[in-house]
């Protein structure tokens, strides 16, 4: 087993969903139950592989890549098939392979209009391949490939199974992200041509992320670095989304089917922040230090702005979508500090946001299914009409507003904490201002989320739904899909070490690496514990 994992484990995790999808293509569409079963088994198998990997993983050495695979791929451009798993990837990988089965279980009776379980589930599995691949790829071209693979299934999911305005939303989503990716690819190519070996000074001509990280931008003129970073910033920033590139998000979320929204919120947004953590900052730390205050600025603008926009929403899904803008703002602020605390907080924030906002969209989908509306004004009294759903919404709302004891807090508080003392070379006074603004954002978060809960959860249910027999409480499938997420939200709330302990060595490693090379890296030389 260990041998298999070492040689094939990561490849298996990536391609098992694709194989499942291929098998499903051979089966006629009318055999819906078979399709659901195959999709579920495939995703569970993937989950099993990841679980095995996590058991085999050497946590004492979480800072180095494990289960590495390195094979020739496109020799002409020296792009290789490199996969690897370290402490930064593990939580996100686990999140991905957990969300997909729960989406499939949820889909059992909830295939959105116009049906066709086969195509819908195949798209889900292809999505899984893309997402998993992105988190495992250690070659820029391979990364880019998987990054783009994700786009199409999501495009079709919105365009075919979406709401009334789906064409507009799906196209906007697709074009916006593609626009960002194009710039990102430019950045990658520039790295390929410009990066040099820190010791010998010879041109690297490689897309290997490990080699590029080790070179940490050495040999690239600072002003050029700034442009390359800017290209990647837009590429990843659109995906996150960073203010002001966020406008595709509310439309996509509002129009997407529930499953699409869940995957979009839980995993897709993380591809962008992961890109910052894994690629943009470690490879170009010098440029990152120059850009960091600006990233921090757009992050805190996002926090406040997203919060304010939430207060003005009348649609539950749209409100949750804007809350994502605010929450990802915390993640970006944490990243902008360029400290171990910040990076750890960012990863925690990503996982927590994935679980919590994923759950929020699940609940919103179930509300929509029962009440046929998400208009906050018309809803009310969920705690009376569907008490269990109301409770779940309550817990998730509390988690989302960053209540300690639930997962959201550990993304938010350390992010604010890290902003007090950013990496050397960054202005503490600027970041402390950001810190206070971000703390203000927590009040807004409490405001809009509690307002939502008060209107939707509390009070008496309105009369138009009084006699509707379709309004039933949480059913078994929903419990099956949701219980793991809810349990993790609580567990991660009390045992933050579960994630921090895994990510910390990798984060320290990645930041330490920045320190030893290249210009600007010396600036990050001290970790952020106030001893510098």
């Amino acid at each position, binding site marked *: 087993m260990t041998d298999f994992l070492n040689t094939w484990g990561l490849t298996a995790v990536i391609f098992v969903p694709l194989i499942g999808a291929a098998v499903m293509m051979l089966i006629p569409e009318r055999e819906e139950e078979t399709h659901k079963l195959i999709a579920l088994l495939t995703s569970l198998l993937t989950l099993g592989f990841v679980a095995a990997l996590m058991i085999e993983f050497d946590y004492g050495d979480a800072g180095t890549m494990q289960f590495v695979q390195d094979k020739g791929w496109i020799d002409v451009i020296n792009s290789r098939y490199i996969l690897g798993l370290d402490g930064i990837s593990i939580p996100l990988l686990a999140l991905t392979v957990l969300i997909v089965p729960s989406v499939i279980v949820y889909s059992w009776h909830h295939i959105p209009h116009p049906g066709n379980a086969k195509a819908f589930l195949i798209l889900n599995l292809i999505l899984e391949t893309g997402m998993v691949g992105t988190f495992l790829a250690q070659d820029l071209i391979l990364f880019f490939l998987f990054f783009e693979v994700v786009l199409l299934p999501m495009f079709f999911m919105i365009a075919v199974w979406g709401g009334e305005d789906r064409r507009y939303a799906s196209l906007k989503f697709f074009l916006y992200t593609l626009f960002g990716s194009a710039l990102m690819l430019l950045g990658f190519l520039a790295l390929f041509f410009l990066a040099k070996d820190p010791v010998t000074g010879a041109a690297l001509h490689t897309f290997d992320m490990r080699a590029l990280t080790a070179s940490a931008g050495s040999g690239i003129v600072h002003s050029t670095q700034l442009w390359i970073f800017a290209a990647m910033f837009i590429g990843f920033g659109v995906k996150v989304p960073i203010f002001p590139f966020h*406008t595709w998000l509310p439309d996509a979320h509002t129009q997407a089917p529930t499953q699409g929204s869940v995957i979009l919120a839980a995993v897709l947004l993380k591809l962008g922040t992961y890109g910052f953590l894994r690629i943009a900052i470690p490879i170009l730390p010098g440029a990152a230090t120059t850009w960091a205050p600006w990233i921090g600025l757009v992050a805190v603008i996002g926090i406040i702005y997203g919060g304010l*926009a939430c207060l*003005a929403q009348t649609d539950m899904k749209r409100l949750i979508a804007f809350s994502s803008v605010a929450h990802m703002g915390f993640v970006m602020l944490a990243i902008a500090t360029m400290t171990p605390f910040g990076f750890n907080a960012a990863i925690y924030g990503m996982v927590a946001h994935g679980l919590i906002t994923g759950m929020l969209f699940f609940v919103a989908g179930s509300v929509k299914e029962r009440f046929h509306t998400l208009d906050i004004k018309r809803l009310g009294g969920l705690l009376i009409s569907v008490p269990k759903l109301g409770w779940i919404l309550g817990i998730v709302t509390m988690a989302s507003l960053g209540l300690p004891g639930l997962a959201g807090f550990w993304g938010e508080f350390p992010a604010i904490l890290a902003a007090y003392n950013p990496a050397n070379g960054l202005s503490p006074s600027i970041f402390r201002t950001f*810190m*206070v603004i971000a*703390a203000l954002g*927590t009040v807004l978060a409490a405001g809009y989320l509690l307002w939502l809960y*008060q209107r939707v959860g*509390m009070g008496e249910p309105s009369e138009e739904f009084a006699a509707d027999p379709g309004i039933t409480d949480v059913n078994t499938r929903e419990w099956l899909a949701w219980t793991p997420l809810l349990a993790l939200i609580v567990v991660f709330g009390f045992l933050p070490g579960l994630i921090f302990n895994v990510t910390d060595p990798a984060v320290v490693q990645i930041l330490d690496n920045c320190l030893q090379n290249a210009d600007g890296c010396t600036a990050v030389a001290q970790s952020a514990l*106030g001893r510098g």
Partner: protein
Amino acid sequence: MNFLLLAAENATQLPLAVSNGTNWFLEHAWIVPLLPAVSFVIILFFGKRMPRKGAEVGVAAVALAFVFAVLTGVAWINHRDNYTPPAASESALVIDGGEIAPDQVVPAAEEAPTKGEVVTEGGGEAEQPTVAIHKSTTWLRNGGVAFDAGILVDGLSVLMLFMVTLVSLLVHIYSTDYVAGDRRYTHFFAFLSLFTAAMLFFVLSDNILQMIVGWELVGVCSFVLIGHWWEEKANSDAAMKAFITNRVGDIGLLVGVIILFFTAGNGSFDILTINSNIVSGGVSHTALIVAAMSLTAAVMSKSGQFVLHTWLPDAMAGPTPVSALIHAATMVVAGIYMVARLYPVFFEGMQIGGSSINLLAVVGAVTLVLAGLVAFVQSDIKKVLAYSTISQLGYMVMALGVGAWTAAIFHLFTHAFFKACLFLGAGSTSHAVHSFDMKKDMGGLRRWMPHTYLTFVVASLALAGIFPLAGFWSKDEILSGTGGWGLFGGTGGNGAYTFMLAMGILGAALTGAYMTRVIYLTFHGEFRGHGTPHESGRLILVPLYVLAGFALLAGLINLPVGFITGNNSSWQERFGHYVQPVAGYFPDIAQATPSYSLAIVSSFVAFAGIGYAFWYYFVKLDRLARATGESLTELPDGLVANSAVARAGHTLLVQKYYLDHLYTDIIVGTTKGVIARAANWTNQNVIDGAVNLAGRWSVKVGRFTYDRIDQPLVDGLANATGRASNSLGDGFRVVQTGKVQQYAALLFAAAALLGGALVVVLSL
């Protein structure tokens, strides 16, 4: 037992805390919060199926926790007097590898007695140092550093364990009757348990990160319980207001904790580390004052200080037991506890010693008077008590602000009992008349409810600070702790806080007066409600009597030094002795000397307040009511009716200083209305507009390219090539007739020609 001297002689180091080798109960104090936490889970999942709907689990768990807390308390008393910490060399042995973190060790020289703290107390004999019990385990790793979670057990936390479990137990018992038949009975008990667990978790925290967790958890329990009857919007509004106001204060908490983490803690959240670093100096004063002021904001929201107190009166929308437990005795003192726990931050940051004004003291002093005034115009009995709570919390904050640490904690302790008693008494009356409105539905209740009346009066007298009830001792200690009694010989203390002393004395008068008003309106005069009131059952009365008993006697455990028995009595300053740490993690504060003259003056003022109110209600109003035969609640020709100034003041009080208007209408209204809508508008029209514009322009450019360039030029060229080949083909097509013979003819002709050509070529 002159340990310090010994330690100094041997030049060894003195541990602030030990992790084991003491009493089992002290080392396992974490069981106390665990019990109600387990009970919460059990009630939540199985409560509805139990014979008493889960209440029995809650009561049993809290009762057990109370027993544990008492045993822990006994163990602490024993430990405080008899424990000799091992010397440094031995203390290294104490440290187990692995899970238990090393105990903080500070050179003895740094915290050796320099001022009065150790020497003066009890008259000359050096006080034995406090050695706290500190156990922790790794919680998370971040930046290569491990962060611990654990318990810190010393006098303060043991006191809180005792107080919280006791009040919680009584409230649990009371609630089994009071909320019987409620539609969310099980849910109510589940959250009482969770609250108790969270509060105990909070007071046992050994680091400030853990404190934040506890702080927020009690906040959310408060939210849930205030909004217990959330079907009515007013209740859920109150719950939201409580939560969001507290969130505003939490900004201060987060910022303060972060500053302490980086400056005082040097990258540690540990309370002992932070405190001892500050006490031993070397922490930037600027950082400390910013941290202290940030944390003060948190105190203002959590402990209901001006100007963030407005949520607390609204929080009375929750069930009465909740008001008693959360909004009188325990949660609202979390702010006080936090200040007490991190006292060096405030003491050094605000330079409490040797000053006469600081933020904490001013906030407390202003609050205690302003809240006391508003209490006069409330007609809802719970709101009067809520404002009274705010006022009393003001006393505690003021006491901490002037350096009277023990007095503040002592007042926290006594206040918990008499205020809980008052709230539960108010609940008992409302149980009888189904209303909290004193003016409309109460009056003359003493005839039907003698037990409630008795306990209520005892608690009121304690609150008003009448000798020898609990409130007298604690309030008097605060007043003398201000050190402002300078005109008449002085009381020592940490500075000359004359303004605070004046406010404190004024507050005493107000307290007496508004409580007299409540008693008259509730229990005297004619009954103004409907139906016939009845006395409550035993489950309600027993907690009332227990609490009244504490209100009567709790003050005696901290008799001032020199009172009656002279110095060196084993009955004096017991509370201070066991609760106030004498250790390297506690600042060097001076103790005020008690003053007979001050006690007499303040008692006189309190009596004056009571007397005036008595004259107004019991004499004038009562006489008028008898004369007219009506049941009056205020004099028709009183001050308010006659004086414009008084009327304006009255309106100001009724409007609660217009703070609610400021918050709800102006701040929240603007944010939610104008600003949020503007943000949304910007999003839709400016940012998204730009995106759409870019999209539209791309389409336009594309169409232009297609129509004007691609189609006519590029595509035109390609088409031309195609067309040319086509016409060529058309030309050759005629040859293809399809007749084999013609093809053959062509073949032969061609062969003949070629043959001819061959002949010609060969012949050449």
